[in-house]
């Protein structure tokens, strides 16, 4: 484990002959307003310093003055690619605190939505990874297949990105009558299309040459730096919350937690593709068995949580997402903290970049799947 002190550089420790380059805040590779200062020796990166906060919107502070119904709406804006899963985390946390058992139907629908969100998120990640590595065509292939998922979302909850579909106690409204059919159609379609991803990028010799053995993160480092999600699992860190602390309908389904031991960029990439397959398996197990019933439990207009501290972990497409609510019994949370996976993943970047080229830095950042509002909150 590299020492934090050694690799870090402060602005007052920069020497005149250090060649520093800013990746961001306006830079194509950072996918948003993230700034990564890289210290270079020619083309070789010696250390990086991620500087965040360009789109810090103070969501945690805002939550302190909002009710629990309203908090959910803010969680969409953090990791906008896992919006539904973020919503669910808050809802589960509130439901656990109030000890409400939601109907089985809700659990099933939530899980299907989770997995569709995960697929959509990984698709967009795949688009962007290809783009970062210079293969622009991936971008359009990925977006083409993401569109049907967004259409399904739009049909059921009226939104394509920020759903607000979950409410404490269930769902805002029942699924659209077409939902099951369209999801099944999509799975059928995507099972045909996903192999194209492998033919276009995974199997490409340039791609494998560029990513294999690059940016290796050992299992110990992954655990120590809290790298979760597919990025952590590529290092062999068994961190799938769906397996470890099952929620919603995950206890009812059989699925595999995909693991690799290499911990390099290629396997971080590969595992996400594998996860898409796995997500389709999960959806297929659930989609025909959605039980009949209510889509929500009747809740009061103003939710008051009992005094205490509540923590809920869910697995977003980026990793281990946590909601920590400190309640003093009022209608607003006393303190609300989001443990975002991207935040921990980003700060592990320094462990992987020592001695790589600039182009590799971009590749490593791409396979960490950074979503900047998730980091800045």
């Amino acid at each position, binding site marked *: 484990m590299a020492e*934090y002190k050694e690799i870090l550089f402060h602005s007052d420790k920069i020497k005149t002959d250090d060649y520093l380059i800013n990746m961001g805040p306006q830079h194509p590779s950072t996918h948003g307003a993230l700034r990564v200062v890289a210290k270079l020796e020619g083309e070789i990166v010696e250390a990086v310093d991620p500087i965040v906060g360009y789109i*810090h919107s103070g969501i945690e502070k805002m939550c302190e003055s909002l009710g629990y119904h309203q908090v959910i709406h803010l969680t969409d804006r953090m990791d906008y690619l896992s919006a539904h899963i973020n919503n669910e985390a808050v809802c589960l946390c509130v439901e656990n605190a109030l000890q409400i058992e939601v109907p089985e139907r809700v659990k099933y629908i939530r899980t299907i939505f989770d997995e569709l969100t995960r697929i959509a998120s990984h698709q967009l990640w795949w688009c962007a990874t290809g783009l970062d590595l210079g293969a622009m065509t991936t971008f359009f292939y990925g977006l083409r297949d993401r569109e049907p998922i967004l259409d399904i979302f739009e049909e059921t909850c009226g939104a394509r990105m920020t759903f607000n579909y979950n409410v404490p106690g269930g769902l805002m409204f029942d699924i659209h009558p077409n939902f099951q059919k369209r999801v099944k159609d999509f799975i059928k379609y995507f099972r045909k299309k996903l192999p194209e991803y492998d033919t276009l990028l995974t199997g490409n010799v340039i791609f494998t040459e560029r990513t294999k053995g690059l940016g290796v993160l050992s299992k110990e480092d992954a*655990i*120590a730096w809290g790298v979760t999600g597919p990025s952590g699992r590529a290092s062999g860190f068994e961190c799938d919350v769906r397996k470890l602390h099952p929620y919603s309908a995950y206890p009812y389904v059989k699925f595999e937690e995909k693991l690799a031991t290499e911990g390099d960029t290629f396997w971080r990439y590969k595992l996400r593709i594998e996860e898409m397959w796995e997500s389709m398996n999960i959806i297929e197990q659930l989609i025909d068995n959605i039980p009949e019933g209510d889509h929500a439990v009747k809740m009061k207009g103003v939710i008051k949580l009992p005094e205490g501290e509540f923590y809920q972990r869910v697995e977003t497409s980026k990793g281990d997402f946590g909601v920590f609510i*400190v309640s003093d019994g009022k209608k607003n949370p006393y303190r609300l903290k989001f443990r975002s996976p991207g935040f921990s993943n980003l700060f592990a970047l320094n462990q992987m970049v020592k001695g790589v080229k600039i182009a590799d830095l971009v590749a490593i950042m791409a396979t960490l799947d950074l979503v900047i509002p998730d980091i800045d909150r």
Partner: protein
Amino acid sequence: MNNDGLKQAISQIESEAVFKDGSQFLEITVPAGKLHHLCNLLKSTDETAFNYLVCLTGVDYPDCFEIVYHIDSTVHHHVIVLKARTEGRENPAIDTVGDIWPTAYAHEREVHDLLGVKFNNHPDMRRLFLEDGWGFPLRKDYVDPVRIIER
């Protein structure tokens, strides 16, 4: 290890620890000065093996700041919540646990940025999100007449 076992193991290390069975996890409050020692042993002892710091955050209470650590073990899959309180609200400071779980360095910077708690021995105590000279927004007494509209 279940909660009782953990209680026993921890009270052996740290006699001043106060236990509370929370709704989900075992919550343990320890004096700020003993925190680093306890964390170190929690990670290195094989029976506890708390090697994964899930979440580190701070809460502003009227008389102190409470730093909350959610710690997981990838070996035994048990989770505890450690808590340590700073002495008063004037110049709050607490030992860093970054040398035990490096991910804490980043999380501590966030707590420092938003709550103004200083972490001793932290190598890089810069602000994270906000610029230098900004207040500490997650403190309950933070006032910003321009950006916060009172309801």
